């Protein structure tokens, strides 16, 4: 069984990423359960998608301490959900912090650095993805989710290989998005 937790800020594309993992797992004949944040929190709030693949899964929510991998679209959100990660689990995290509106209002200096410091302190396995760079290279801010998935696939913990991810992009996404997303996978995984 694989437990994958995706987290970020409303509007970053976590839902599509979780669906892609789910579709690809189903293609392999596995059972899938997912749970998503829909509603008021989508407006710039914290969003979390739980994806569980394998056999005989009961809960659509991952029990705390049992996520194999956390795919964080934002460093602070990775920390917020760290209690879901199993002790030897992996964190894939986007480099760029998203400041909440409240940060500008209160003059808070949140920049995500404390989050990275925390991961170093706890000695978690972590891969940092420079999402901004990948998006710039691919010409669209929308490839962030695929860039993070590619990094997760490259660790071998996603339950999907990089090739299976590429296959899933071609099978489940509209044709006009194939080239830029495949480029993002190649930039991240080097294959």
């Amino acid at each position: 069984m694989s437990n994958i937790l995706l987290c970020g800020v409303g509007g970053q594309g976590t839902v599509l990423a979780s669906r892609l993992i789910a579709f690809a797992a189903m293609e392999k004949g596995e059972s899938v359960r997912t749970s998503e944040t829909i509603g008021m929190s989508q407006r710039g709030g914290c969003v979390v998608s739980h994806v569980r693949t394998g056999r005989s899964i009961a809960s659509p929510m991952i029990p705390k301490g049992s996520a194999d991998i956390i795919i964080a679209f934002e460093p602070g959100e990775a920390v917020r959900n760290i209690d879901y990660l199993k002790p030897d689990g992996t964190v894939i995290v986007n480099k760029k912090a998203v400041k909440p509106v409240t940060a500008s209002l209160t003059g808070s200096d949140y920049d995500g650095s404390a989050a990275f410091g925390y991961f170093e302190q706890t000695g978690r396995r972590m891969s940092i993805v420079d999402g901004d760079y990948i998006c710039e290279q691919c010409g669209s801010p929308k490839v962030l989710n695929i860039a993070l998935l590619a990094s997760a696939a490259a660790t071998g913990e996603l339950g999907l290989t990089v090739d299976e991810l590429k296959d899933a992009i071609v099978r489940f996404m509209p044709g006009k998005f194939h080239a830029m997303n495949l480029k993002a996978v190649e930039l991240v995984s080097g294959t």
Partner: protein
Amino acid sequence: MSKRFLMGNEAIALGALHAGVNVVSGYPGTPSTEILETIAKNNKDKSVYVEWSVNEKAALEVAAGAAYSGARSLVTMKQVGLNVASDPLMSLAYVGVKGGMVVVSADDPGPISSQTEQDTRHFAQFAKLPVFDPSSPEEAYEMIKEAFEVSERYNTPVLFRPTTRVCHGCADVEIADSFDPHKPEGFVRDTKRWVIFPRASYLNHVRIEKRDPVLGDEFSASRFNLLTGSGRLGIATHGISFAYTSEVLADAAGEYKLLKVGTPNPFPEKLALEFLNGLDEVVCIEELDPVIERALTYTVGKHHLGVKIRGKLDGTVQPAGENTVESVRDVLSKFLDIKYKRQELPPLPELPVRPPVLCAGCPHRASFYAVKQAVRGRKAVFAGDIGCYTLGNAMPLDMVDTCLCMGADVTIAQGIHRVEPDTLNFSFIGDSTFFASGMTGVVNAVYNQTDIILIVLDNSTTAMTGHQPHPGTGVTMMGDVCAKVSIPRILEAVGCSYVRTVDPLDLAAAQNAVREAADMKGVRAIIMKSPCIAVTKPQRLFEINSEKCINCKKCIRELGCPAIVLTDGRPAIEPSLCYGCGICAQVCPVKAIDRPAGEEAAK
């Protein structure tokens, strides 16, 4: 049969289609909205009639009429919508139906996106209606088909109440490849049956009281209720909590009996007796209200059983909020004496608070800001309502003083005005909410000569629930283009003393209209009309000219737009978020914000 990856709401929709549903109506509300949308999406041949009704009461009555005519009908809403639909529902429970009719009322433990943590299972007991409580998307698909069968067999509307984690959870669901459409017989005149009168209601009441024990026994044998295990300890649960319980019990040794109740009303008492037999103690793991716990406590008393029932009522289980695998594990580890080790983590660094906010470019921000500026220094109360614009309460706008339920802004403002006649009483209502239940409140104000200022925030969609059409949009769920119902013409027709439509993105014009209205008496209405950014293309984006900017931060302090961020201590516009609404440019005291000349929209 074939496997599909479906959200719970999609499974419910396909289950209803595969049960041959003919007529589907509803009103959008999280977490129920995707059910009706999925039906519409799977209705290419238009063989099913689908509508977003003006509100839940209208939806339920449309479905009732269809069911009187022998059609199978489905109504969808969120739990607070059932309050709106309760008038027809209570009477319909007596009158009954001919074609199968299922009322989906989605509950929201937490609550995550709702005003209350009310429990539709209680509503079922109150209205004397059967209710189904699915625990997963797969079960929801099968269960809704059974709900139509029960409805038709007993000529009664049936409630179906999933909760958020079932509605918005996805799973691989085995679904039928084909199904037989249901052929309605048509309306057959029978005044004794279809006209509600006291004498008929008495007879119907007797009939229902006789029916319920029979149906309860039938439910005792239902495949949606499970009884497993053995021993002297029992666990009773339901819905998504059954999934959490199963997750915890997978690691548990020891003996216990497990009861999962999928049909809480009428209560399957025979099955419950079988469960209670030989037990010393039971723990009930429920979300929302202790419905099973009370029913088991009653059953124990009725049959003089010496079984201790634990749950919410004795503090064993949390009284409010969502259950989780962890909360269930906490309860069961004590109850079954399971040992488990909690992960110890070093204390977390300070994390940013991310309250939901109005989107960058949202016209509601402009509307609230215009009103705030126009009445600055005057005594005013701002009654708000349900929708994206409830977020106008956040700092720095801080423009929502009350919010109760759909449509209440209009009438709450009137009540406050009766106590404080020297206050300017504003009432903010969205376009969809106006049609749903705002109009009657406006008529009440006109009739009773109350001085209020109604601000209709018309963004031409039902935004919060995901952009559904409504009477003002000119499109229907059948894909037809229809005449738009005009909000200003309604307001003029009912006798508002002042009706103006302004574009809130023109701040000066909007403020002028508010000032003009504030100085008049009667029911004054301003329609702030500008489309939701999610249904329009972005305009050319704005930038802050750092040479002109005096770093006063007024744009940040007064607007709270997510696209304006502090970068190195100075305001900057984040191009990936800006929608080009231009409000900040109008607010800037030194005209430092502008569109770069000649550049087209970046998105």
